[in-house]
């Protein structure tokens, strides 16, 4: 496979984005291309471990780092961009750990050697980057403003960052590096949305948890947390809850009918991805941004608002 050219970046889609969350995947690619960076998909990538493999020693680090190795050998890129916050957490966690503990790096490398699939040893010199942070730092808000052809004026949005985009800063280095977001009060998504003309509302649950990790095994907790977030955003007058993580979508969007059934209409609020709204503002159609994929039906509200 060809190495990356200028204005291209290595992109790790993960398991959710190629299947049920294609809305996030497609719109991320459209938006990045419009802003001047083409996302090149990594081939033969594997699952990041989704936090369920931490009991298995170095395996939990091998899984994400194998993809970092692939990015280097396939595309010649040290860095890897990803749109899923859970993947982002797993990657940053593994990279930080092997940087700090040399013996863990040795263990991971022993699995690499045993597998004998990718040449060379792993060296933790690259970074995993979240697409929001990547676009913000590489292109900036001005680029978003420049590309906005259809202002989102009239839309009230509630940005929802969730947990793993900004926390914990021991792995993500938020607060510690000046070009990264604030861990308790992130603002990158606010800046983007306001740059496109939308109005952001303050509702107090921006960095709350959706209970995503236990969404399968502990629905009760997840539903309670989600209903709090959804109803608070709705009360603050938001038309949309805006996400940057497919796991949050699983809890807040796919499960929303069940949450509404249990907690009532207060929790009924359309959920969209940030990149979908960006695609809309950049002049792409609602079909291209795949708004119809969301279970919580954002199309109805968009129609009401005249989009």
């Amino acid at each position, binding site marked *: 496979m060809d190495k990356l050219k200028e204005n291209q970046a290595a992109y790790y889609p993960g398991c959710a984005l190629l*299947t049920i969350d294609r809305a996030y995947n497609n719109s991320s690619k459209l938006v990045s291309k419009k802003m001047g960076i083409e996302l090149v998909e990594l081939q*033969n990538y594997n*699952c990041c471990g989704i936090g*369920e493999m931490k*009991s298995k*020693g170095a395996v939990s680090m091998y899984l994400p780092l194998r993809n970092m190795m692939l990015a280097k050998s396939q595309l010649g890129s040290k860095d890897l961009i990803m749109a899923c916050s859970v993947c982002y957490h797993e990657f940053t966690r593994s990279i930080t750990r092997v940087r700090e503990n040399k013996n863990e790096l040795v263990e991971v490398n022993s699995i690499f050697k*045993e597998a004998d699939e990718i040449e060379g040893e792993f060296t933790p010199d690259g970074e995993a980057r979240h697409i929001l942070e990547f676009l913000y730092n590489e292109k900036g808000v001005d680029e978003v403003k420049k590309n906005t052809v259809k202002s989102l004026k009239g839309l009230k949005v509630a940005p929802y960052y969730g*947990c793993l985009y900004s926390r914990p800063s*021991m792995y993500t280095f938020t607060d510690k590096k000046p070009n990264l977001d604030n861990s308790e009060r992130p603002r990158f998504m606010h800046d983007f949305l306001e740059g496109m003309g939308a109005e952001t509302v303050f509702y107090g649950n921006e960095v709350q948890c959706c209970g995503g990790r236990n969404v399968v095994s502990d629905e009760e*907790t997840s539903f309670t947390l989600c209903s709090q977030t959804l109803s608070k955003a709705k009360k603050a007058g938001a038309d949309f809850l805006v996400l940057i993580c497919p796991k949050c979508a699983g809890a807040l969007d796919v499960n929303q009918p069940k949450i509404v059934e249990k907690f009532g209409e207060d929790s009924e609020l359309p959920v969209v991805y940030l990149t979908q709204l960006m695609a809309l503002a950049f002049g792409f159609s609602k079909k291209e941004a795949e708004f119809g994929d969301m279970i919580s039906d954002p199309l109805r509200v968009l129609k009401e608002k005249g989009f």
Partner: protein
Amino acid sequence: MALEKQEKRLVAEKGEHIIARHLIEDDHIKEEKNLVIDGVDVSGRWNTFITTRVDSEFDRAFFQEIKETVVGSRINRCWQCGMCTASCTVTPLYRRFNPRAFIYMMQLGNLKELKKYVDVAWRCVGCYKCSQRCPKQVNPAEMMEALALLIKKYFPEELEGKLKIDEEVKKIYEDMILGHGRLDLAKLHTSSMQKMGKTKDLIGKIERDAIFKMAKDGRAFSILRLGKPHNWGKSKDAIENYLKNVKTIENEAM
């Protein structure tokens, strides 16, 4: 909005206003209805006392064991400030979920105490607020994972009871990730619903609507195309080999 049901009562419970009351046994709380000390009337909640207790059933080897895991390596740094519990997402829902207390019990190796919390100990949602705010970088969020591992090792009988769902869902994840290299979200959803005995919900209206929607827009079929990473077999063998030789808590439990 606590999920644990609280029944209505008229009379205040013993030691009710103590924060984290569940950590103290009834016998250790002294409350007098009417009490005057040195001519000062201290009736009511002002005269609550907690008697000293002696704990002797420790297993300090437990501490070392946690320290050696990937997730629990920073346990020795904790100085019990309680910031983790104050920040916790789960504590307001389950009052008995108290990360500070769990870490204390783990440091002491007090298995007898820990066993009382088997039903809530696995409920951490992994939001990492505690790890973010911890002044000593203990990483309590991952410590809760170490805890879940250890209670599975020391109380295997609970795997058939209170920990059954957590364990079975974890197994599904592991089989999929190690076996295929990628996660099939549709299969994950259906098989975990089945394991939890919610097969009935799967044919309910909400689920049916979602499946119909995904079949209509084609996403249901993209799941079939996800496939395996090329050459995953090599990684799979290497991982299995590694797990055979390495000492993890799970290996020892088996």
